[in-house]
């Protein structure tokens, strides 16, 4: 018996998924705890004692939440188009995040800001360039020069001799 709103994007499906996800995480915690002493060790309760019980509790509470969802009213998780807007912010962010370790902070940041300003926000070139070049420059002055906190560096910074 499936209702029309129960497809992907339905509130009930999302609630159920979240509860099952929490229960699954509880399962991982229990599995991890079982690799350790879950009872009484030489220094009192063993390393697995606390996580095992937390994990079991989590599975229990999440299971109740999931069961309650079977009786809940159907509804929308997000308005139409909302998930796409979220994805269009999240996907470039993820690329930016992955690029930080190999390429450093500054180059990916400039490209990320340029992409977001030009493609997503449809800003003009002057605004987009000001944002994309000004922000990393401001970050450099603030963190590296003024506060002395080094940010991630990549091949470009190395080639320019900036450390």
């Amino acid at each position, binding site marked *: 018996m499936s209702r029309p709103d129960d497809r992907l994007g339905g509130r009930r499906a999302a609630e159920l998924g979240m509860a099952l996800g929490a229960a699954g995480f509880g399962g991982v915690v229990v599995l991890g705890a079982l690799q350790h002493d879950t009872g009484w060790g030489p220094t009192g309760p063993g390393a697995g004692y606390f996580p095992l019980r937390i994990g079991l509790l989590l599975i229990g509470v999440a299971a109740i939440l999931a069961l309650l969802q079977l009786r809940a009213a159907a509804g929308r998780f997000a308005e139409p188009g909302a998930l796409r807007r979220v994805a269009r912010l999240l996907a470039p962010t993820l690329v930016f995040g992955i690029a*930080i370790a190999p390429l450093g902070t500054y180059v990916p940041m400039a490209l990320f*800001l340029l992409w*977001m300003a030009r493609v997503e926000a449809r800003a003009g070139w002057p605004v987009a360039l000001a944002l994309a070049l000004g922000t990393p420059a401001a970050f450099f002055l603030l963190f590296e020069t003024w506060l002395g906190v080094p*940010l991630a560096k990549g091949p470009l910074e190395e080639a320019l001799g900036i450390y």
Partner: protein
Amino acid sequence: MEGLPALLHGFEVALTAYHLGLMVAGVLIGILVGVLPGLGAPNGVALLMPLTFFMPPVSAIILLSSMYWGALLGGSTTSILFNIPGEPSSVATTFDGHPMAKQGRAAEALSLAFLCSGFGALAGVITITIVADDIAEFALRFSPAEYFAVYLLAFCAFIGMGGANPLKTAVSLLVGLSLATIGMDTVSGEMRLTFGQDELVRGISFLVAVIGLFGIGELLATADETEKVEGIRARVRLAAVLKTLVELPRYWVALLRSAAIGIWMGLTPGGPTAASFMSYGIARRFSKRGDNFGRGEPEGVVSPETSDHAAGVSALLPMLALGVPGSATAAVMLGGLMIWGLQPGPMLFQDRPDFVWGLIASMYVANLVAVVLVLATVPIFASVMRAPFGLLAPLIMAICLTGAWMVSGSGFDVLLAIGFGVLGYLMKKLDYPIAPMVLAMVLGDKAEDAFRQSMLISQGNLTVFWSNWLVGSITTLALLLLAWPVLAWLLRGGVQLSRRPAA
């Protein structure tokens, strides 16, 4: 009373040019953070934290707490002018603050909000000054069992009194507690829940989690909403402030009641959000002008604002004296304290009086500085809100990712923060509260240690948590709070059943 000389010494610590400068900087960053979407007080404190590692702890806590006061005020600004709460705790301010602004009384609403915030904060600090030593002395009698009972009380208070679905609050707490166990076990040195991954040996930093959950998650949630930002322009003139100041005593009942609610909710771990809602609800019920609430009634601004700040300020006392934070922001600061090498708890009052009283004295000064600065700078900060979200969001995102990287210079942390961002977005959409998870991540290790030590002392006998009247009453109170949702449901059901035959 030993408080006064200690406080005077605190003022000597707080009133240096360096610390005054930090207060001004902290308040200004805080207002900005409170105004911008995706940068709330907990996230702002987490982002600034890596920069404080090289400062003396007193200076660090003065900077971070000043930022907290600024963020609370910035949150109220956007609530009133834009109907967008910058902080969860200023949601209740939108109910009457924004209608007032739409009626052309924006300046009045803003000055009222800021002055009441100042009053609430002052009431909170004065209370802290008076009771700090007593609470610390009281906490000196705590053994591990009492500590575990207090942590349990904090967790159960969130479930029973937090206002969100108790089951979802419990899930949030338990996930936080699980995350806290990842990494090296402090007692046995065993690697827990790392599944052979080197990245997880250090554990999951709560700073990374806070940046993801509150910062990136909030940005994703804002991208989800389509609402156009339509603000009301306002400039606060000195004359309007003075006029409001003169009229303020008219609301003395609301002021005192809301301050009391706020202080209580801050000292017990209810937090500013619960305090402001409770205060608004009670004011609407008991005020003579209760019918006007929701349509631009000044008392509807006075009540939540006073409570919000009274709670925010007093939430720092249990953090210092017991190591139990009363709000999400206080939880982040508590984590900071431990990173700076300070051990929160009653001994802090004996070992580091300069730190404790320097902070308390700075709270008097910084809140005054904050109210003056926010009144002077409202138009500037309000104009930040008019920048298009499409440009603001990537900029704030860049700040969040850089902040996550700075925590320990690891690319893994950046990805972890994005993961927490997705989780925070889902939690927000599905009404899972986020604060309990952060609280549990910060307190998890301490709670577990306290539990294991108590078990060791009692040789595994759980009755240690009822072994004397102190620990027994805290544990019982905690369990009562935990059972409160069920009890309330039963009571309501009982009342309905007994009414039915009569009808």
